[in-house]
């Protein structure tokens, strides 16, 4: 089913080829400029917290890779939930013999951010080969696993914030509510201070987006964090599903 969704979206995307090409290009320029800005900042300092320039570049590249993958999979779907709920179109989702949460979260696939994600993956590989090689056995796998846990965690928290539309009515930018909170992951979580650091590592575990995965290469694999990431991802996903079920009980539809 998901393959059909992706194929359908590819056809749709190709109707706006120039938008796809130009958006991909702008996306790439934005990420490159953000990375270059850190080079300028490190012209004035040698360390930020305990982070050197290559480590900071790897963190930023990891953040952008994560962000573009997230946009590819979820962002376009999240922007549609408000419309589904307030126009009553959610009826069509709920009457299908498929998980409603799956359909509203993954029905559309955005190719516009995919080029950015691939570019950042290339940069991550180059940075690792240039500055962090050789790696200890399993470090790459742990890095990838932690990113997957981060994806599930961010999806779950972000999705949960969208559910407010079931109570608050029409909020056409509800998909942006979590973004300012999520912004904090673009900087190393361990420099955020004694209150935010544990909060963003253990309570709202946003550190799993970039900081914790990159620390695999800078401080070595931490198996406790790997285990915690698995637990946090599973708990977040479970909680988001419970909230979805709870929110559905307040759905009254809007059609005649």
């Amino acid at each position, binding site marked *: 089913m998901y393959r059909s969704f992706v194929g359908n979206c590819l056809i749709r995307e190709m109707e*706006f080829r*120039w*938008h796809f090409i*130009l*958006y991909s*290009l*702008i*996306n790439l*320029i*934005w990420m490159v*400029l953000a990375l270059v*800005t850190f080079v*300028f*900042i490190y012209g*004035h*300092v040698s360390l*930020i*917290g305990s982070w050197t320039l290559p480590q900071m570049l790897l963190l930023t590249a990891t953040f952008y890779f994560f962000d573009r993958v997230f946009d590819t999979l979820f962002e376009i779907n999240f922007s549609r939930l408000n419309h589904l709920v307030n126009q009553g179109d959610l009826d069509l989702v709920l009457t299908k013999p498929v998980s409603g949460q799956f359909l509203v979260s993954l029905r559309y696939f955005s190719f516009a951010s995919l080029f950015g994600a691939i570019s950042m993956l290339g940069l991550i590989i180059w940075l690792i080969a240039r500055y962090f090689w050789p790696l200890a056995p399993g470090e790459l796998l742990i890095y990838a696993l932690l990113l997957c846990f981060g994806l599930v965690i961010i999806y779950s928290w972000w999705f949960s914030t969208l559910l407010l539309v079931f109570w*608050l009515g*029409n*909020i*056409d*930018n*509800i998909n*942006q*509510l979590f*973004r*300012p*909170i999520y*912004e*904090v992951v*673009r*900087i*190393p979580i361990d*420099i*955020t*201070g004694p209150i*935010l650091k544990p909060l963003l590592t253990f309570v709202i575990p946003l550190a799993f987006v970039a900081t914790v995965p990159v620390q695999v290469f800078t401080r070595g694999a931490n198996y406790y964090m790997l285990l915690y990431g698995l637990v946090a991802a599973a708990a977040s996903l479970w909680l988001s599903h419970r909230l979805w079920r709870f929110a559905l009980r307040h759905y009254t539809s809007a059609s005649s």
Partner: protein
Amino acid sequence: MRKYWLIFKLNLVEAFVYRATSFIWFFCDFAPALVLVIFWVAVFAGKDSIAGFSLADMLLYYFGVMIISTVIIPHPAPWLAEQIRTGQFAPVYLLKPVSVFWERLCSQISWRLIRLLFTVPASILVGYLLQDYLGDFTLPLKRLSILILALILSFIGQLFFKICLGLAAIWFGDSFWIIAFWDMLMALLGGAYFPLDIYPPLVQSISLYLPFRYFFYFPLSIFLGQADSAGLIRGFLWLGFWLIVAGLTYRLVLTRGIKNYSAFGG
């Protein structure tokens, strides 16, 4: 002008009804600067000065960014692009005696007024939390008047340009990419992301000849009290120049756009 007063009042009511929407946009504009405050506190650990900025200067800078971002950055483009894409542009603007600019101006001002409900208390709270760093900061009446003038001119100039970005959907079908491009340049060359002083001289020189610096960094420098008399005159001349360019660009794009516009559906 009565019709625009009515449009303003209608938008004000709408913005008040959808105040959650307004809050989220405020939050999106306000929070990134808070993240950068945290970032710079870490950068300054053990350092007295970076690119001529002390930590207090830098925190004051982002305090200004937070306030100015929420007040003077209009967002008319995505809505206009959506109207064009869905064929609603003609019923709203072409079949009624309504100017695109004035209608969008009324709408943006009303939404920004409601946004002040969040901006003012949030700024007071952040100002209180950063009081150790902002202790000497004052905004005398004369500088405040100059700042308000710069903010108004910047707001109108940006509005003209951003309407053009929205109207680009007439040619491209979707103008999201060009809006993203503008926002990127504004963040980098306007100084909303990082102070322009940390960039190399070449980038700073380029920024002198583009509008972004005058739309954002110039009002910010007035807010911070960094602009001297010569800088103020130079800044206002450039701002005036870009305002005229923006107005002429708007007229050109609108005239050509209406000739090219086509809509589908019944």
